[in-house]
């Protein structure tokens, strides 16, 4: 069942209403909750970018941790060594992430697919982490880099409320851009490649170029998230970009819903907010995390987004296929 035009108008209103209402969030929640919410916004972007490659393009590529680290380090290095203001480093981090995406897509274009692609991109992420540890003069080694305290137009960038507004605006912009991209002919080609690459090529669609574009967009979004992360924690060090990071974002994609933008948002919200309560018990966080993923895989293979779709047709994404 497709949504009617009235429902579509309602959906557009809803899309802008939610962030508009969120503008009031810093006034009603305490600083700790706001810090968590800022983290959720970052994870929304990571999941969005990751889902773009594994959900929409359908490639089992695990390089998003690499993109994330590249983005965070680009931002940190550009602010500390080059003295750029943080806000100016966001596009820089995005572009660096996109460059990482370009490298990862080279592997996919070499015919390395499925598990091979998963393993080589995993290696890419770990090699980057090795570089962070050993390129001490630039990255600070295992000690990492701490971000300078800055102000933007008179507002302190160490204030979580200021961060929240910047993060929110960027998240809305990137979510909207991703939705538009998916609706464009490029997005449709991306999903055609997922369904059948050879058939797509036979229609005259340059599949290689499509794969490169998808990886680069994924890298751009996740790279931007990395830049936000650098400001969020005020401190960038190699351990933040390890296997744990990868698994968390992978779980967010699946729990939210593979190939669904709404799913990326839901997955990030649910899996950041819930484990936060279990942080103080060693092991519980992992156990809980594993169990929730198993439960979703067994009972709700299309993710949480499919629950909402069942609830109302306004949540059906037109380019999405069950």
């Amino acid at each position, binding site marked *: 069942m497709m949504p009617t035009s009235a429902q579509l108008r309602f959906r557009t209103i809803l899309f802008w209403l939610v962030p508009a209402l969120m503008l009031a969030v810093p006034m009603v929640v305490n600083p700790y909750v706001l810090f968590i919410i800022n983290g959720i916004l970052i994870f929304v972007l990571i999941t969005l970018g990751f889902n773009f490659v594994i959900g929409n393009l359908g490639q089992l590529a695990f390089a998003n941790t690499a993109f994330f680290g590249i983005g965070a380090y680009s931002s940190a290095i550009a602010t500390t060594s080059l003295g750029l203001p943080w806000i100016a480093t966001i596009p820089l981090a995005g572009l660096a992430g996109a460059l990482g995406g370009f490298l990862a897509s080279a592997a996919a274009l070499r015919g390395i697919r499925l598990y091979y692609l998963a393993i080589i991109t*995993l290696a890419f992420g770990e090699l980057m982490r090795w570089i962070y540890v050993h390129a001490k003069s630039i990255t600070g080694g295992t000690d990492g880099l701490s971000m300078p305290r800055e102000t933007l137009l008179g507002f302190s960038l160490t204030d979580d409320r200021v961060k929240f507004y910047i993060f929110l605006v960027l998240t809305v912009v990137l979510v909207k851009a991703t939705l538009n991209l998916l609706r464009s002919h490029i997005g449709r080609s991306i999903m055609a490649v997922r369904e059948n690459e050879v058939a797509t090529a036979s229609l005259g669609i340059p599949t290689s170029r499509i794969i490169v574009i998808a990886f680069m967009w994924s890298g751009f979004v996740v790279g931007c998230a990395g830049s936000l992360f650098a400001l969020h924690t005020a401190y960038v060090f190699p351990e933040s970009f390890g296997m744990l990071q990868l698994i968390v974002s*992978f779980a967010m994609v699946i729990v939210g819903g593979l190939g669904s933008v709404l799913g990326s948002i839901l997955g990030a919200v649910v899996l950041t907010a819930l484990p936060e309560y279990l942080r103080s018990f*060693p*092991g519980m966080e992992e*156990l809980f995390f594993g169990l929730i*993923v*198993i439960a979703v*895989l067994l009972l709700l293979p299309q993710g949480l987004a499919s629950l909402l779709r069942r609830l109302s047709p306004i949540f059906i994404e037109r380019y999405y296929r069950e």
Partner: protein
Amino acid sequence: MLLQLTISGLSQGAIYALVALSLTVVYRSTTIVNFGHGDFVMAGAFVSYVLTVMLGVAFLPAAVLAVIAMFLLGLCFSRGLIRPIRGGPHIGYALMCIAVGYVLRGIARIVWGREVLPMPSVFDMPPVFIGNLVITGDAMFIIGTTTVLLAIFFAILALTDIGKMVQAVYQSQRGAQLIGINVDRFNDMAWGVGAAMGAMGGILIAPVSLLHPDLGASFLIKGFAAMTLGGFGSLHGAVIGALLLGVSEQYAGAYINSALIDITAYLIIVFVLLVRPHGLFGHKTVVKV
């Protein structure tokens, strides 16, 4: 020096061989790569730790019990969690394996907290000196045990009907079903054998290293690197790839830079996949339309 490094490389490589081989056993029969395998290895080591150190069971019966326990765990995992999601995307399998690995790691951390546990050495064999070459008791124990286990494994494959079944299922699941092989049950068994062999690796490494819940992650990568080098899906390739990996880690660490030990496996993965994706002994996959 060279010989000394080769021996410690082989003893590391022997463990990698068990890990890579157990990954391959599962991959060959189910075409699933177990991304949670490192945690199965860790779980095997922990079960043997509980039995020997906490309950005072002797090493050998403890090791046998741990292997049986992990075999059953693998069997139940396949039956209870992999079969229900069959037919879904491969990404689902990958995440299911990771999730189960997470649960195992979580349990290990709840019980042991964030401590690092030393495992007592099993056999206090004195090191053997040949010229200025020193072979530690542990190295002899690991290499010896692995050789015996691998010999048994390959003998079963080469000489018994089970070996023929394995080959049949690998070539065509449907064909195997047609000639009366219960493929579902066969796959469950493959998971069980895979988990048990991974556990053997964990049990062997436990006495020479420290135990902690995150032990598995590095073994998973080493296993992948060995499989990639040997050729994905090739059984003897996995063993040879593992030995080569163990030795080259030692060489790279000693002759180039000790920081390279950590990333030799990653470099091998990237290099092999870009230059010769089917590895040393694998078959080139041809895309058919």
